[in-house]
């Protein structure tokens, strides 16, 4: 629609109407091309978003596991030579970082998928989406301990994710 196109334009002020010299030079509004729309639509897809979240969670878990694994001291510290201690610590770091990478990747995947699905279904951008997604993630991760552990995990992770969301909102 070539004429006044509503929301994203600048209330009718275009650079062709320069009657008053005080109005700033606003560039005319340009409709997005199909490629731009397509590029934005990529991030609207729940599968792609959750996989990307999972990958980021995996990277975070890798580094965290590496760091925490380096802090582990071997049990038989006096009986090993320095080289053996080094090999042991390295193996420990590797094992720890891989397991933590998997855990965080799964957590990120489930959280992102749940939040995306709930938000698309509700068609609203709220804190409720975060709560539900956190509950699903926490519950599914602690499901192995029985229903009571699942409830505790659900509530705990939901509260945690709401706090993180509020913190990120305030600082962005």
């Amino acid at each position, binding site marked *: *629609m070539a*004429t006044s196109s509503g929301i994203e334009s600048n209330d009718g002020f275009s650079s062709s109407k320069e009657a008053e010299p005080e109005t700033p030079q606003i560039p005319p509004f340009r409709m997005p091309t199909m490629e731009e729309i397509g590029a934005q639509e990529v991030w609207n897809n729940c599968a792609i978003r959750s996989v990307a979240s999972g990958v980021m969670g995996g990277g975070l878990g890798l580094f965290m596991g590496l760091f925490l694994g380096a802090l582990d001291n071997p049990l038989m510290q006096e009986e090993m030579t320095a080289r053996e201690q080094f090999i042991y610590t390295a193996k420990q770091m590797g094992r720890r970082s891989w397991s933590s990478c998997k855990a965080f990747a799964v957590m990120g995947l489930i959280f992102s998928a749940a939040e*995306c699905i709930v938000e*698309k279904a509700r*068609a*609203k*951008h709220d804190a409720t989406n975060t709560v539900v997604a956190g509950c699903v993630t926490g519950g599914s991760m602690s499901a192995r301990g029985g229903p009571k552990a699942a409830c505790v995990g659900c509530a705990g992770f939901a509260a945690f994710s709401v706090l993180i969301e509020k913190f990120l909102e305030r600082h962005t």
Partner: protein
Amino acid sequence: MAANTDLPPGVDKEQVFGMLAMEMEYKVELFNRLAMACFNKCVDKRYKEPELTMGENSCIDRCVSKYFLVNGIIGQMLSAGQRPM
């Protein structure tokens, strides 16, 4: 060749252009009202990020589809000669 000019008899070009211009105005008006209505309904007034969130996107999809549906129904009712509710 160029556009086929097989107009029904009794209708001249001026009329056709007039009708097309009116149609274009209707479409523009429809778009503007649709955009305003769905924006006021779907987008939160406190802007937290520059892009539309996913919830807002799906809200806008639903709003636009409902608007077009209702627009079509009212158009049919008007053209059938009944009074719209």
